[in-house]
């Protein structure tokens, strides 16, 4: 391997590491946002039910 190959390998690993972590954070964000939406919907329907009663 030449020096440039090593340098490119290091760059690719850094890019993959940081972008991989970003993807993980975005996936977790999506999951939590969906959970919050479900909980809010559930609360609204519960409120509506209690009003009807």
């Amino acid at each position: 391997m030449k020096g440039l190959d090593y340098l490119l390998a290091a760059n690719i690993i850094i890019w993959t590491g940081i972008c991989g972590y970003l993807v993980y954070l975005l996936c977790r964000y999506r999951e939590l946002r969906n959970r919050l939406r479900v909980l809010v919907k559930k609360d609204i329907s519960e409120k509506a039910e209690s009003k009807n009663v």
Partner: protein
Amino acid sequence: LKRDTLKPRPFIKLIIPATVCVILLTALQAFVLVYSPEEQTMGIIQRIFYLHVPLAWCAFLAFLVVFIGSISYLVNGNTFWDNIAHSSAVTGLLFNSLTLITGAIWAKAVWGIWWTWDPRLTTSLVLWFIYAGYILVRNFGIEQERAARFAAVIGISGFADVPVVALSIVLWRTQHPPALIFAGGLTPTMLLILVVCLTIFTLIYALLLAMSLSLHWMENSVAELKMMVGSEDEAGESK
């Protein structure tokens, strides 16, 4: 239930800082590849220096934040500090891993070996294990508050390894090159590029920390709402 509590806590839209991170990182790598001057002894491989040193700096900074956050959590008992320490530990471990990998690549190109049990390398690996242990304790399945306290103790005691890593090149005879920045071994152009890289990597660290922290706040919001709403169907919520 008040309407305010049902809304997610104000958190930054993650897609914006994520995009900024990717742009900054790509621009930084292009900048290092195109603009940095070629060093006479090592040639093009020396350019790893502009990535390896800022990564190590960010790891140290992250572990300092863990140290401060852990002390504050043990003193105040405020989960805000615990969240900061946890987020910073994960980010710091990422930067530490990348430091070790880029160091190994550099070592292979210059020394002809991927790894040697040199004091600097070994203490850096110990640092990695300490913070990997910190994260393992968090996910060990014990009660959350106890796990946070255990992790805070690791966060404080583990920081003792950071000065050891930093001073290892002075304390022991080592194969690792000395700190050229303080010895005046860099040309003004090299120093300028290093400062730019340090700034950008620190910015990336700050963005990653903010993003991770906002996720912690969202997790807390979910937990609070679940208690208020009395949700039982946890498995179905994530779908």
